């Protein structure tokens, strides 16, 4: 039962084959057994989970269940969950019990999904390896000497090890797609504005977007049916109808025009990853798609531009942590300045401080035009690359990450090398486009993800394109040996 997709679990709950309390018990047991090694949960919400499961079972019996009613899921610890510790994996919020519920988690709660707990992550979502968490690094279930990717590392580790059948994540520069790729899962970053950011701890507000982490595209569609939609509490939420993301999954993809950006297959791409991606593209050709080489000429500028925009917005957002209203406060402050500087100095970890420093520097007097304004202009150029490409092709494909999962500690001391591991994912956030990573095979026993980028609000089509591939292959159903 623990290896089933949420589509299968939903059916099993409906037929009475299993109850939500039974499923919840099963997954909580698995968490107890495996979490000490993987470290993928910061909080396990056992009592709330059983209460929600019992309520879901009543709803299933009464016949008014939604598709996810009774299905256990995990939430990244970046979403405020009322009455439950919400840490963002930071010492700063180690004592923070959220006084309200995020829109995203409220929607899952209202749909009857059962929250198993809150997953580990890079501190304030800043990282690509889940090594910056105050609660310690997360391990990759495929090889526990390796990172799961980040920042949604706890979510992917939990789902890959079958400790939860699905999870939420957030993606500012690749934080859903890169870890999904490194752990062999399906991850979707929706169009900016598609899923509400209300109650999601802000990192870089013009880039942050929440999305699902699942086994299959079919499951991601079920999650999107719950998550997506306009929210007046999020000023950047988009007022636009939400389609049924499950409706078009089975559409044919004969004649689908796939663009392969030559910049995504050049220097820096691991040979093993390149072979897997080539094979996946051939599979699409066998399914009737047509492949065309395209160019996204400003690709190399995405990472440098991101490391102006994201830190600038992060330093602004994180100025709210002042040791006065909530969060960590230093002992025995001498004066107000001492209170601010020591509370922040003690509460934030090394990577978060680094990004606050960069952000403060680029926004400081005299530098705004040279850095932030310049970055916003290049952001336009990056978006224009995609706009031009989508005049020629329907979707863009390439690797999600340049390599498979790297070893714990391998890049931890070298921020710039770590940043470059997001080279293929960041441009998508800069442009605000939707993109998925889907399992496409293995290189030296480690999962490889294929990135599929779509046009604005084209999530339904992206999931269709992913689903057709998953009907023809079984890479997305592989389970690491120890967790079968």
């Amino acid at each position, binding site marked *: 039962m623990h290896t089933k997709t949420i589509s299968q679990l939903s059916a099993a709950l409906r037929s009475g084959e299993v109850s939500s309390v039974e499923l919840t018990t099963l997954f909580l047991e698995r968490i107890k057994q495996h979490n000490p090694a993987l470290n993928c949960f910061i909080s396990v919400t056992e009592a709330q989970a059983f209460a929600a499961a019992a309520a879901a079972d009543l709803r299933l019996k009464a016949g008014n269940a939604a598709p996810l009613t009774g299905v256990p899921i995990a939430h990244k610890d970046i979403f405020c969950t009322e009455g439950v510790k919400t840490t963002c994996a930071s010492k700063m919020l180690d004592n923070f*019990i959220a*006084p309200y519920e995020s829109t995203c988690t409220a929607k899952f709660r209202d749909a009857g999904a059962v929250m198993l707990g809150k997953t580990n992550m890079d501190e304030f979502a800043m990282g690509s390896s889940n090594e910056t968490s105050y609660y310690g690094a997360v391990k990759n279930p495929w090889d526990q000497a390796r990172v799961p990717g980040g920042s949604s590392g706890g979510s992917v580790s939990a789902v890959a090890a079958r400790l939860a059948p699905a999870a939420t994540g957030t993606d500012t520069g690749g934080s859903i797609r890169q870890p999904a790729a490194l752990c062999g899962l399906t991850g979707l970053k929706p*169009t*900016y*504005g598609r899923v509400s950011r209300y109650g999601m701890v802000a990192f870089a507000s*013009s880039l942050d977007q929440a999305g699902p982490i699942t086994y299959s595209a079919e499951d991601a569609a079920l999650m999107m049916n719950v998550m997506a939609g306009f929210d*007046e509490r999020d*000023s*950047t939420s*988009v007022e636009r109808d939400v389609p049924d993301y499950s409706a078009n999954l089975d559409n044919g993809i004969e004649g689908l025009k796939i663009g392969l950006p030559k910049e995504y297959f050049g220097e820096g791409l691991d040979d093993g990853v390149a072979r897997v991606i080539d094979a996946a593209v051939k599979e699409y050709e066998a399914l009737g798609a047509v492949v065309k080489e395209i160019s996204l000429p400003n690709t*190399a*500028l995405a*990472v*440098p*531009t991101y*490391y*102006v925009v994201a830190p600038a917005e992060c*330093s602004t957002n994180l*100025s709210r942590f002042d*040791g*006065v*209203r*909530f969060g960590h*406060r230093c002992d025995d*402050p*001498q*004066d*107000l*300045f*001492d*209170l*601010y*500087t*020591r509370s*922040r*100095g*003690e509460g*934030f970890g090394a990577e978060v*401080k*680094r990004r*606050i*420093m*960069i952000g*403060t*520097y680029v926004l*400081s007097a005299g530098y705004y035009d040279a*850095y932030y304004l*310049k*970055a*916003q*202009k*290049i952001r*336009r*150029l990056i*978006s224009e690359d995609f706009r031009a490409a989508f005049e020629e092709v329907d979707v863009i494909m390439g690797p999600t990450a340049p390599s498979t999962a790297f070893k714990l500690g391998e890049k931890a001391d070298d*921020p*710039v090398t770590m*940043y470059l591991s997001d080279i293929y994912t960041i441009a998508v956030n*800069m442009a*605000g486009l939707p993109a998925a990573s889907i399992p496409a095979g293995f290189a030296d026993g480690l999962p490889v993800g294929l990135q599929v980028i779509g046009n604005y609000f084209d999530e339904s089509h992206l999931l269709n394109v992913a689903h057709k591939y998953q009907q023809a292959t079984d890479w997305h159903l592989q389970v690491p040996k120890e967790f079968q």
Partner: protein
Amino acid sequence: MSVDQSDITKVALLARLKIDEADVPQYVDNLSNILGLVEQMSEVNTDDVVPMAHPLDAAQRLRADEVTETNQRDKFQALAPQVESGLYLVPKVIE
């Protein structure tokens, strides 16, 4: 672009971050490396490019100027390190 120790001290002050003396050289290295990466931006001519603040170029939505939230002061102050009579307490600011 590289930064020196005095830049680090100044930025830390602006950011209200206490940084240990011993860590300053590492910040100098890290920030210089990151700014070196960022420097690639200067090679691009952006003279006639309109800056992009929002991926969909959406404008800020407006709402009617009406009270929509209820006062939850006690609930929120329950999270604060130190409060008294509904006020947040900080060290003495004015002598």
